[in-house]
């Protein structure tokens, strides 16, 4: 039984961006791609979550300190909290989408030396990165069951990878 998708080895789509960061696809002939597994990706995600939350906490503390010296009605306070939630969501989505669609590496991925690319090894576009983030959320909703797919897929892809057509591969230090 194989969970490998037939589209995985397909060439890039007609509208696929040809720009690559390290061109793993071209190196594939010389050296096989090494797909990164669940533990490494979980550690990278944990580092990213820590960075996101740390920045959000510091920003929220600064804003809260500023607002504490002002007389703000309760209704406005509720609106400010809602705006903070929206900003947190935007910051989280933007963090992943920007890093995945530019270098293919979030800071956590960079530390763990892995890169997110398309199935052909190219840097993904922002739309696909956004789809991957949505898939990431969906995979996490059922008690992270969507990530268990990584354990049984031949290319170590999770639900979010299958939805966005991406893979997570090793990015050795020399290629960064």
């Amino acid at each position: 039984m194989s969970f490998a998708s037939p589209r995985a080895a397909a060439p890039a789509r007609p509208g696929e961006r040809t720009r690559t960061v390290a061109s793993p696809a071209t190196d594939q002939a010389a050296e096989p791609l090494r797909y990164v597994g669940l533990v490494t990706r979980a550690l990278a995600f944990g580092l990213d979550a820590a960075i996101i939350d740390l920045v959000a906490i510091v920003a929220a503390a600064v804003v809260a300190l500023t607002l504490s010296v002002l007389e703000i009605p309760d209704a406005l306070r509720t609106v400010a909290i809602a705006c903070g939630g929206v900003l947190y969501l935007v910051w989280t989505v933007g963090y992943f989408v920007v890093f995945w669609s530019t270098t293919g590496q979030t800071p956590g991925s960079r530390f763990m030396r892995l890169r997110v690319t398309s199935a052909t090894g190219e840097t993904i576009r922002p739309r696909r990165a956004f789809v991957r983030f949505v898939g990431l959320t969906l995979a996490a909703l059922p008690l992270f069951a969507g990530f268990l797919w990584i354990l049984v897929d031949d290319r170590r892809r999770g639900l979010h990878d299958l939805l966005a057509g991406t893979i997570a591969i090793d990015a050795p230090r020399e290629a960064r």
Partner: protein
Amino acid sequence: MARVSTLVDPLGLAPRATRAGERALDAAAWMAVGALGRAVASPQAAKAVDVVLQSPLPERATRAVLRGPLVDVAVDAAIRHRVVERVAEALLVRRVVERVADRLMAGPELDDLIDAALVSPRVSVLFNRVLESDGMVRLIDQVVDSRLVDASVDRLLASDDLWVVVEEIASSPAVTAAVTQQSAGLVDQVAGEVGERSRRADARLERVARRILHLRARPIDDSPAVTDGDVP
């Protein structure tokens, strides 16, 4: 009244005779010095000196002189007449020491001497003996235990110059670059180690999961890609 000299030497020959005698003495002296020089420079004289030096005569003579009262008399005389003080004063007044020191510092002899001493294995052995000796250990212990070190450290810490030097060193680009490089190297090393272990855990967890689900192993065996070779 006639002068006495006129009566004794009416022809005035005495001064001339004196001058003639002096000339004769000078000539004799020159001849004697010349003859002595030739004698000293002759091979016979050299042989004679060699024979004398190789014989026990110089040693016996030196021993006799040292045992005899001559040395004591000479030393007493030198002390009584303040010879040492006068010599030292003359050396200081005429700046002999400074001139000798300048000459030594300007010339290559001192450098050659120091180089030869540093290269010499005997000096090395001597230094090792001195450093390993009990006396040196006791001396170092005494210096460390004394108040000299504490006072020196206190003065050093109290001086502003020290902190200026420390700030200069700390802010130098070379030190900053070295610290940055060291920190980056440490982060790389940690990342490499963590990456290697996590990739091993990936493979292990995957094998367990596939065994539980009765799936075949992955077609490509993923050994850890991040190895020690990646770590600088």
